[in-house]
């Protein structure tokens, strides 16, 4: 599936509506992390473009930000599974990115071999439990 320039603009709009950039935190938007669209994304872009033309007489990527949000929200209600499916793939891709993981301190390397340290916790909290006595049935 190849995307025209207009489709790509629509795609970027959609991606940034899901996860917008946050320059203050140094976080990119979802359009900036190399998301590869697939057939389902194409379906959504078509739905959004058709809806934009019917509802606002304009291509989706030509709408103002508030209008894009309005169109997306109305179509999310009509096609909840499709939009959820695409959102799932967008966030999965987004939170794999080194840049994102670095800013959010999510770990830039696999758990192994370094591992992590975890607080032991206060086992004296068990005193209440212990002194209550046996709770199993003696058979």
């Amino acid at each position, binding site marked *: 599936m190849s995307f025209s320039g207009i489709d790509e603009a629509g795609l970027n709009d959609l991606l940034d509506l899901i996860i917008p950039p946050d320059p203050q935190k140094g976080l990119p938007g979802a359009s900036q992390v190399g998301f590869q669209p697939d057939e389902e994304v194409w379906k959504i872009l078509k739905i959004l473009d058709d809806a934009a033309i019917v509802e606002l007489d304009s291509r989706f990527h030509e709408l103002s930000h508030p209008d894009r949000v309005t169109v997306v929200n109305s179509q999310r209600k009509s096609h909840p599974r499709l939009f959820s499916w695409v959102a799932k793939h967008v966030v999965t891709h987004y939170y794999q990115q080194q840049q994102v993981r670095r800013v959010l301190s999510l770990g830039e390397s696999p758990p*192994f071999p370094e591992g992590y340290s975890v*607080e*032991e916790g206060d086992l004296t909290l068990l005193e209440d*439990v212990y002194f209550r006595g046996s709770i199993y049935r003696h*058979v």
Partner: protein
Amino acid sequence: MPADILIIGAGCSGAAVAWRLSDLGLKVVCLEQGNYMDPSRYPSATIDWEQRRQTDFHPSPNVRRLPIDMPVNDCDSPISACYYSAVGGSTILYSGHFPRFHPSDFKTKTLDGVGDDWPIDYHELESYYAMNDQMTGVSGLAGDPAYPPIEGMLPPIPLGRAGEKIAKGFNKLGWHWWPAYAAIITRNYKNRERCINLGPCNLGCAQGAKSSTDVTYWPHALRNGVELKTLSTVSRIAVDRAGEAIGAHYFDADGTERFQPARLVIIAANGIGTARLLLNSKSELFPCGLANRSGKVGKNLMMHPLGYVEGVFDEPLNSHLGPQGACISSQEFYETDLSRGFARGFTMQILRGQGPIETAVSGILRQDIPWGEEHHQSFQNMFGHTIGMAIITEDFPEECNAVTLDPNLKDRHGIPAPKITYRLSENSKKMLAFGIARGKEVMKASGSLREMGFGPVRMAGWHLMGTARMGYNPKTSVVNSIGQSHDVRNLFVVDSSVFVTSGGVNPASTLQAVALYIADQIRANIYEFLRN
């Protein structure tokens, strides 16, 4: 080469039995349809570890679709069947929960008028629980008022901030809790290195600290001379004219059909695989399947309907760190109290929080993390701020819950695949609803901002029990009190198929104790059981 003892399945129970029978001076062969695992390729050693839970390490064989996977038709069940085929079996993907059954679990009919009594009891198994703990390497804390004394454990898994937080909630309510019993070593043990809190134990442990049987029993069994043939899928067990087992037909790694002769056959293929194998082993003498004169093979499937509760907390708890499944557990509601509206009970297990991708995905799907401007802040408010809880409910043996052979579905060798038919009883439904409500209550008492819960969780059918049940009566059970088929003198079953009831805890510890118990009964009279 003929075997004296043939074990089918190299997982949780097969490994324990292989080790226990490995020093008799007999030829022991094990056939395993999976392969050896390579821990350096486990997800926790790769940056995309979270996504691999959706692909090659997915809990369901129907989603993984690895060449060695046995497919299963689970459309007629609200709970999907989960298992893994490898040296180590499903212990490769278990979370390492290792609580024991309670003494009352073996006497539910006598005590509560539900289920059935086992022909063995807790005290007969006690030394086998201890033997298994010693071989496995178990962490925990002695003195738990929910159990008879348990000794000899390694120090408990760290509670972490999240564990401590919810422990205070349990205390506020005056409810029982205790550090989890975990098959995870917190100190170096038997040439294995201690847990370093990688997190996703249920995706395989690259450190080798989780006590899956490929790193516990198998090294000892192999050193004692057990021959383990991997990538060997058994299609059926053969019998002679006298009705004694003579070995098993299997497909090797190249897909060539072979026969492994044996004088004694032990099945250790889990609550679905064992039933499937017996039902596929039809013959003139056993037209309804091997060892199935009772008609009970495949019946009484129990799966532990699982509830899930989650609380979101204001402060950072670093809850995503630590062994994902093991933290603390509560057995406040384990024993029967009919005023609750149901018989028997359940365990509440505190889980660690999810990884970043799972947090984001579940947050997006549940609308807890919105699209748009608020996305980033909402993600940060969720990640490391949640505490999860699994509610493991006891379900009873019911004949309508069953494993049968699917008329159409087959594995890659053309062997008929299993179909499961399962529904929750009214007792299970009431117990699950009650458990979820109590889970939310403890989250609230711990200070959660909001709570959610649901059940049964679909992708949670790891505990597969009851389909070749143990009992004194050949008309109502498949094997006797020592795991020996009522119908075939030299055929034994050692996996959780033999469970009479399910208890309200993870079954791994008990199924291995039962397997070791059966192995010792075989040891004691080995020459009586071997085919001449």
